[in-house]
């Protein structure tokens, strides 16, 4: 019953309040020049806001682009021949006990020097390293790794993610030399050139001092002769492969006076059944010359230390191995590896490396 009276009181109070409010502030007016100030300030504020937005967008774009480029540059498996650091070699440990060492990407330097020291190392390697006929040549790539595949502007360099599968198959062990074949199936179109990037890890997981040589038919024909120095243009579903030979070294305490220094394996010791015709020959295998080249040994001696398990990892791009195999050696080993080549029956897409070089 009292509600109407309360409402009436409230309305009366509200009306009085309204009047008092207006009366209290009736003398207030805008300061002179306020409109001019607002006319200047509004566009200025809008410009500042747009500039801030643009700067933010530009910063985000620059940061994202820089991060992407930095990530790509850090893991670029194809370092420039003209100079600069060889990131690929920095990712692995160069060998100090064997000339021409350096597992992983890029051309090696004599004595396992760090590639970052000298940008001209690739051109000095072949001349600085004393090579003897029949001795294994150091890792000199037939294809300049900086070359861009000619005629394939749209296909990028293969990555680990470009592969649907990477399989390793052991072809057997002959005379102590173990042969492995890596076969990869491509998921997305990409290109490959030169030698595969291998990383040899010891039993403790650290990079082992195992030199990696290219299987040059003239110097170290340990593997079946395959067309090398080609740039492979791979399409989805294509397969490519490469082969490697794991050659355990003879232990220093085990003299081998009776065996010729330049015959790691006899002609009867063919690597695989399928590669007998082009298997290793006695006259062109690795030697134990004074230059310190590794010598493959047929069988480990009984006094040799216990064999160590090494893990040879293959990475299509970067350092994360796409496939790895475990191999054993008592006193170190050498690895001989072929270039990439198309799997049998898929020769259509390969291009000579020279064309890629000149096109670059």
């Amino acid at each position, binding site marked *: 019953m009292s509600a109407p009276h309360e409402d009436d009181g409230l309305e009366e109070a509200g009306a009085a309040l*309204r009047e008092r409010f207006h009366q209290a502030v009736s003398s207030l*007016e805008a300061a002179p020049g306020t409109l001019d100030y*607002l006319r200047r300030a*509004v*566009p200025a504020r809008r410009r500042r806001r747009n500039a801030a937005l643009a700067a933010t967008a530009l910063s985000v774009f620059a940061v994202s682009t820089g991060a992407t480029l930095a990530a790509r540059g850090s893991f670029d498996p194809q370092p420039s021949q003209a100079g600069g650091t060889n990131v690929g070699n920095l990712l692995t440990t160069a060998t100090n006990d064997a000339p021409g060492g350096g597992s992983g990407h890029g051309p090696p330097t004599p004595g396992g020097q760090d590639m970052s020291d000298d940008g001209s190392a690739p051109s000095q390697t072949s001349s600085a390293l004393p090579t003897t006929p029949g001795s294994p040549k150091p890792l000199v790539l037939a294809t300049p790794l900086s070359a861009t595949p000619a005629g394939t502007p749209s296909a990028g360099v293969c990555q680990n993610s470009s592969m649907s599968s990477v399989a390793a198959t052991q072809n057997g062990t002959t005379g102590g030399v173990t042969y492995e074949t890596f076969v990869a199936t491509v998921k997305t179109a990409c290109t490959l050139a030169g030698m595969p990037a291998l990383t040899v890890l010891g039993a403790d997981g650290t990079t082992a001092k195992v030199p990696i040589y290219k299987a040059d038919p003239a110097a170290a024909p340990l593997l079946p002769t395959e067309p090398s120095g080609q740039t492979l243009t791979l399409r989805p579903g294509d397969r490519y492969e490469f082969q490697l030979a794991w050659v355990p070294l003879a232990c220093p305490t085990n003299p081998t006076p009776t065996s010729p220094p330049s015959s790691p394996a006899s002609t009867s010791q063919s690597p695989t059944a399928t590669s007998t015709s082009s298997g290793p020959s006695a006259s062109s295998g690795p030697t134990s010359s004074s230059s310190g080249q590794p010598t493959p040994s047929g069988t480990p001696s009984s006094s040799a230390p216990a064999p160590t398990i090494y893990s040879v990892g293959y990475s299509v791009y970067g350092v994360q191995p796409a496939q790895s195999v475990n191999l054993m050696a008592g006193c170190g080993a050498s690895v001989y590896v072929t270039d990439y080549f198309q799997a049998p029956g898929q020769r259509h897409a390969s291009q000579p490396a020279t064309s890629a070089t000149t096109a670059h």
Partner: protein
Amino acid sequence: MVSSDREAGDVTVDLLTETYRDHYGSLLKLAALLLDDLASCEDVVQEAFIRVHSARSRVRDPDKVLAYLRQTVVNLSRSTLRRRLIGMRLAPKPMPDMASAEEGAYELLEKDALIHALRGIQRRQREVLVLRYFSDMTEAQVADLLGISIGSVKAYGSRGIEALRVRMEAFR
């Protein structure tokens, strides 16, 4: 493209001028009733104008420019009060260098007992009373602007009037 930008700029300037002529005074008075420091009223209203008009493209309904301006004035007044409260705790307020053009009017306002009483009640009650009885907004509009229910507006209004009455009697 340039002409269209210029046209857009002209339209903005015209709208700014129009809004200024129509509402700047009332918004300034609104700020004067909400703030306990009258020197900040001009700053608050000018900032509200700058903010709303520099983002005119985001104002979908041109008829709601006044609503946006009111909302911004209320929010900025709250922020100013909050900032001043913190500033008073940390450092003494410096004296103004020169007198404002509106100083005389502000002095009159300062002497008003209603204004003193208004500054003594709760902030929410003060906002409801000012918006309801000075800006002549409905309870629903006040509730919408302050983000509270209509019932809360009624409660704050009645309690605010009662508190104001008590304070006014105390001044006498």
